[in-house]
């Protein structure tokens, strides 16, 4: 009602995605020993940002109709 839920979800996940990407890019690679050498912050951050963007797009399209 009123607020399409995809918009807050989109915002939240985009923000989380950006935070993780930034941290992943700037952090010391040594911390990724525990995640099997994978820069999980960067990679998962990108996934979350994409998800957030998709949600925002769907939410915007929804409210236009």
């Amino acid at each position, binding site marked *: 009602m009123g607020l399409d839920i995809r918009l*807050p979800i989109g915002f939240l996940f985009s923000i989380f995605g950006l935070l993780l990407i930034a941290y992943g890019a700037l952090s010391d690679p040594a*911390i*990724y020993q525990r995640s*099997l050498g994978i820069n999980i912050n960067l990679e998962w951050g990108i996934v979350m940002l994409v998800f957030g963007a998709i949600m925002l797009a769907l939410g915007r399209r929804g409210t236009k109709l």
Partner: protein
Amino acid sequence: MLRTIDWTIMIVYFVFVLGIGAVLKRYVKTSTDFFLAGRSIPAWVAGLAFLSANLGAQEVIGMGASGAKYGIATSHFYWIGAIPAMVFVGVFMMPFYYGSRARSVPEYLRLRFDEKTRGLNAVSFAIMTLFSSGISMYAMAKLIQILHIFDAPFAWLGLPQAWIFHFSLVLSALVVLGYILLGGLTSAIYNEVVQFFLIVAGFLPLVYLGLKNVGGWTGLQATLNPAYTHSWLGMGSAHTNRLGVEWFGLTMGLGFVLSFGYWCTDFLVIQRAMAANSMNAARCTPLIAAFPKMLFPLLVILPGLIAIALPAQNLANLAGTHAAATVPGEGLVPVKIDASGQAIRNQDGAVQLDYDLATPNMLLHYFPTGILGLGLTALLASFMSGMAGNVTAFNSVWTYDIYQSYINKTASDAHYLWMGRMATIFGIALSIAAAYMATRFNNIMDMLQLVFAFVNAPLFATFLLGMFWKRTTGHGAFTGLLSGTVAAALHQGLTLPQGGIPGVKGGWLALMHVYPSEMAQNFWTAIYAWTTCFLITIIVSLLTRPHEEKELVGLVYSLTERPTQHGLRWYQRPAVLAIVVLAATALLNIIFR
């Protein structure tokens, strides 16, 4: 251990949650808006909320614990337990819940039966839901303490560590109070959907890393005892599998009585379906929820399996193990220690593992700073949404089924809306009280689980007869419910699980039978309770005056028009969704047998 980035993620989440409440406040004008989200929620949103309201952190952590203890057989709770029940409630029962325009489950009972049946259900549900909420709060505060989440800021601010428990409790209560006061059920539903995506976001990378580390499912099969990786192995008898229960007790006790008793009658979840924007959306809500529910074992049970499959880890820097670093646990699961730091041993002298720490330790083991904040936020989010679900269910049942029915029948809608907000406040206050009771009586959680089981087990029999047999009467329903609950208590009082001591575990009346495990005892208690309720309801109904048929139109199967499915695409038809999800669940059972 936790850095700024982790805190930032957590704070962003809390701000969002309250922000959603603030934005939604302007749309809450009537009591229907507050208690039922204006009946305007789209099916997919209601479906995810239906799933999430049930998915408290106790489930997330509890399933990880069960996975570490019993292995993939834990999936029975989902594939035998939840899925069939969710399909049944969506396809067969939602037409009556939604079509009757009842604003709560007890109100349906009032329409179908009589006032005393409604009263019995309303009062027992209100009490149980508040205790549930309190236990959620308690478990979350305890976990925050054990994981040392707030240790660093408290030390930095010079505050005593002992305050962390109280701070966590009160903070979570205030946040939930905030967003529900503002936006009512809509707020709760929106946050539950966010929580669903957060849990996936937090746990999917965990399972990915864990499986990569142990060599995938085949790696787990190679490392672990076959009993862990086969869900149906040895289910022919209670003595040949880790659950200690045979297939009949499992399917009837868990699969039928307990699961249907919960998913088909518990207002916490039904409320989300009642908020849907159409009859078809309401029917599809549990079905839509069933799809992710089916896949959740892979998300929440696997971490437990991985935790126990790893070689014994140095847990000195992980949760709750400072004193227990001397006694090795298994994999990532530490031994249980008492207050003095000694390992707790059972009667045979063996150490007991603290399985509840399996999932948290997994998070701490694999996640570096950054994503760790995300994982912990997901856990906190699931605790809070469990609480929020309980509180929204409570404030509706209080306002409509107790206050409006017995105290003030003819007030204005604005007054009931006000009462709903008040009920939210005192509901949370009572939950906090319940949480503190749990700190004093460590058996309280066990006792409450028992009481829930006693009250829930017979419920489904009542609804089943009520919805599908027009001859069921109010007297029948009421006596059936009471006798079912009494039967559950009697059964529990006369039996014990293997190795149990008479007391909370059972046998407090006399000892007539010993079950191979606690689960077996629980499932059989449920079966006896349900059967008693079923038979007594039938007998008493036949002995009492039937209801007028015209009163029952829309409330009983034989007197209600079937909902039409014209103009619906295939993925909007309940029957189609039901068949697909059941087939997929059967397939999962076969794959993981």
